[in-house]
């Protein structure tokens, strides 16, 4: 699974819910008419409920860590959520003919903020560093699949060990961030706290737990951007408190994953830029013990009542009737969840028990401790699954690291998790047999074949239909179940323009300008 377990847990906790009676529909971005062309100057304040642990390029390519890295280093390539296209970023181009041999062209004369050249050797140095096991880099799993060689200061030839037309996605996140080699060698372990990159901003100060202040990088290649002089990242854990700060004008871009604030913001005349993410808030099923049997898995799928969960825990938010939302390009009627059918489930379970002669089935439902929303959902699911006799569910709340341990080691029957990430290639990592994040032991030939096709085929139509077949198969085999589509809302006052959702909870700070 792309997102490091700890940040997913945090993301779920971030989804703190208040049971608001007020009705609120899902509002698409109400784009105000652009008020003239962009103006330079001003301070832009972004706020979310947690903060990055380090700004070291090798370790920041995960979940919440992405923000500061993108601001300081800029990404080699940028993935536009709306169009689904991958555009050039710090690099000029990244092209391939056969999906195996790729050529990375860099912008000539590009330098880091410490004056040293941003050239192919720098890229090679950073990618090589990611492979060093001591750095425990989450990007290592992608870096291992490729070899590279410096051709000339602005060109790097990359060969993928296997045909993979989605490799360019790797350069938008995992291998996207390039830091100044001289600074890395000079600072060593402390580099993570005082990074040197070529991106739109440079790190000025970092009061952990409260705020990080970044200022414009004068030598950024894409003048006149960034428009704002200063970017501030504020950490305000409680959603309602963050919303109060937004209304009080202390925050310009507020990231939130709970729908109700978007509605309240629109009511208050603010702009909401939102983007659907892959998957949703739900749980993943492992394949051990009784769960190896498809009948048991279908029975479980038939017992979950999305309606009831949403009404109780996320009132007013749209219910996820299937894997992909209707408005998503990958939507397919086949990806709808199975109908709720308690008798059917009871029959399936009885058949299974008579077939295998096993007694009551007991499943563990693992979740992160400390979040009332998650524990309420868990208690609801427990009561839903226990409507049939012969099935008992034990709720196991684990704090942060113990949860991560259970996740990575697959020591669970059902575990709270969201797919996270934006690019469908994440499905490859999580559900392809042997995928680097496939810790639930899921293995399905149809899914493998479809997902491999997405890598080997260069034809977008083929890739799209491959994803659809994979998703339908995932739903059919009940690999994963959720009741609420994952989405990110970036709320900003009317005078802030150019806000675009990027990665999961971040945006493109260099594109934003403030109308004074």
């Amino acid at each position, binding site marked *: 699974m792309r997102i490091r377990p700890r940040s997913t847990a945090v993301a779920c906790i971030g989804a703190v819910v208040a049971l608001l009676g007020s009705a609120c529909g899902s509002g698409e971005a109400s784009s105000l008419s652009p008020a003239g062309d962009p103006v330079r100057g001003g301070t832009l304040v972004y706020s979310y409920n947690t903060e990055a642990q380090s700004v070291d390029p090798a370790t920041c390519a995960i979940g919440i860590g992405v923000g500061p890295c993108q601001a300081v280093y800029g990404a080699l390539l940028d993935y536009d959520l709306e169009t689904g296209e991958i555009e050039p970023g710090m690099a000029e181009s990244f092209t391939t003919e056969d999906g195996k041999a790729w050529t990375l062209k860099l912008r000539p004369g590009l330098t880091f903020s410490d004056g040293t050249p941003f050239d192919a050797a720098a890229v090679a140095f950073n990618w090589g560093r990611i492979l060093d096991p*001591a750095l*425990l880099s989450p990007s290592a799993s992608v870096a291992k699949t490729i070899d590279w060689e410096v051709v000339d200061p602005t060109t790097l030839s990359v060969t993928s060990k296997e045909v993979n037309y989605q490799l360019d996605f790797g350069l938008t996140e995992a291998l996207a961030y390039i830091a100044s080699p001289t600074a890395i060698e000079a600072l060593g372990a402390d580099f*993570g*706290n005082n990074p040197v990159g070529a991106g739109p901003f440079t790190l000025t100060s970092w009061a*952990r737990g*409260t705020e990080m202040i970044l200022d414009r990088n004068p030598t950024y290649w894409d003048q006149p951007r960034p428009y704002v002089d200063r970017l501030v990242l504020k950490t*305000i854990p409680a959603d309602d408190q963050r919303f109060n700060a937004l209304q009080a004008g202390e925050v310009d871009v507020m990231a939130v994953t709970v729908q109700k604030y978007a509605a309240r913001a629109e009511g208050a005349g603010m702009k909401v830029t939102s983007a659907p993410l892959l998957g949703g808030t739900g749980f993943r099923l492992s394949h051990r013990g009784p769960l190896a049997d498809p009948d048991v898995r279908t029975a479980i799928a038939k017992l979950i009542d999305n309606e009831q969960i949403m009404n109780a825990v996320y009132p007013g938010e749209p219910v996820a009737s299937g894997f992909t939302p209707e408005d998503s390009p990958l939507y397919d009627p086949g990806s709808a969840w199975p109908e709720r059918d308690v008798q059917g489930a009871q029959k399936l379970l009885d058949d299974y028990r008579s077939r295998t002669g096993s007694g009551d089935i007991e499943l563990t439902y693992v979740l992160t*401790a400390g979040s009332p929303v998650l524990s309420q959902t868990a208690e609801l699911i427990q009561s839903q699954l226990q409507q049939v006799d012969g099935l008992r569910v034990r709720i196991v709340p684990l704090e*942060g690291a113990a949860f*991560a341990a259970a996740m990575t080691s697959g020591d669970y029957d059902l575990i709270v998790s969201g797919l996270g990430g934006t690019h469908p290639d994440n499905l490859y990592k999580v559900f392809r047999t042997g995928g680097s994040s496939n810790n639930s032991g899921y293995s399905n030939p149809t899914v493998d074949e479809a997902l491999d096709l997405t890598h080997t085929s260069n034809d977008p139509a083929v890739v799209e239909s491959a994803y659809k077949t994979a998703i339908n198969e995932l739903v059919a085999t009940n690999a994963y179940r959720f009741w609420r589509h994952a989405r990110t809302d970036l709320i900003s006052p009317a005078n802030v323009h150019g806000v675009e959702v990027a990665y999961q909870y971040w945006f493109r700070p260099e594109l934003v300008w403030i109308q004074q």
Partner: protein
Amino acid sequence: MMYRAVARHAAKLVSVLALVSVTTFLLLETIPGDRLASVLPEGATPEMRAAAEERFGLNGSLPERFFSWLGSALQGDLGRSMQSQVPVTDSILERLPVTLELATLSILLALLIAIPVGVYSGYRPGGLVDRIATFLCSITLSIPSFLLGVLLVFVFAVTLSALPVTGWTPLSEGLVPHIRSLVLPVVTLAAVETVGFIRLLRNDMVATLQQDFVLSARARGLSTPRILLVHALRPSAFSLLTVMGVSLGRLIGGTVIVETLFSLPGLGTLVITAITGRDFLLVQGIVLVVAVAYVLLNALVDLTYPLLDPRVRTS
């Protein structure tokens, strides 16, 4: 005599700190499950695991690891946080001022309320003020800090929306917003301390006011406020000082609930993330710092006590 007392306290301090460190170390050692879970990324390779164990000093025998940690700790290097690579000492020093400010302000607020109320109820025991104070004290003592915090938030922040619900506004953003963000947490923390101080001061005053020297002071025609504040309060102030010192020491480790409730970036929230994130070195560092604070303050109180109270001073 004074040096022997200092030596005795120093020995006690060192031995308690040693014991605290060993206990924390053993506590963290005996945790079930994978100790690197929160650090290793998805699909971590065996080499990564080996490298991680080496870097965080998790290999080697238990005593080796402890003494290497202790060795560097004595030179002030408590190692690096496993997750953020920030040296433990830096992240503690960054968070300590917040907790210290919370603790000291709570104690000061408690004193501000306790001294007048304590003195007056001691002066007129059984009177109106005394009865009201005793009643309120027994009520406050029975409301746990997390409940009190939630109720205060409900009344002041939600209904009256006079104060921020949670969050910490650093001093750099102006005194008023800073103080506003501190009011509710400090009141929540100070509630119990105030009760303790009032009861202590009241009982002390009742006892002191029955002494003869108070009567002879009145016979000399000195004014009642002067007698209360100079002649009666001063001897009682010493035992108040002792309790204050101990409370401050305990508060430094005790603000976990309030900091979590109001999401303040103090040691309390740091320790919660450290423990849930199994960041052993960070936990070890924090517990040591808090224990040092507690023991130092206790020793300080024991040593300064004779200096302040002439009756005990053996000059």
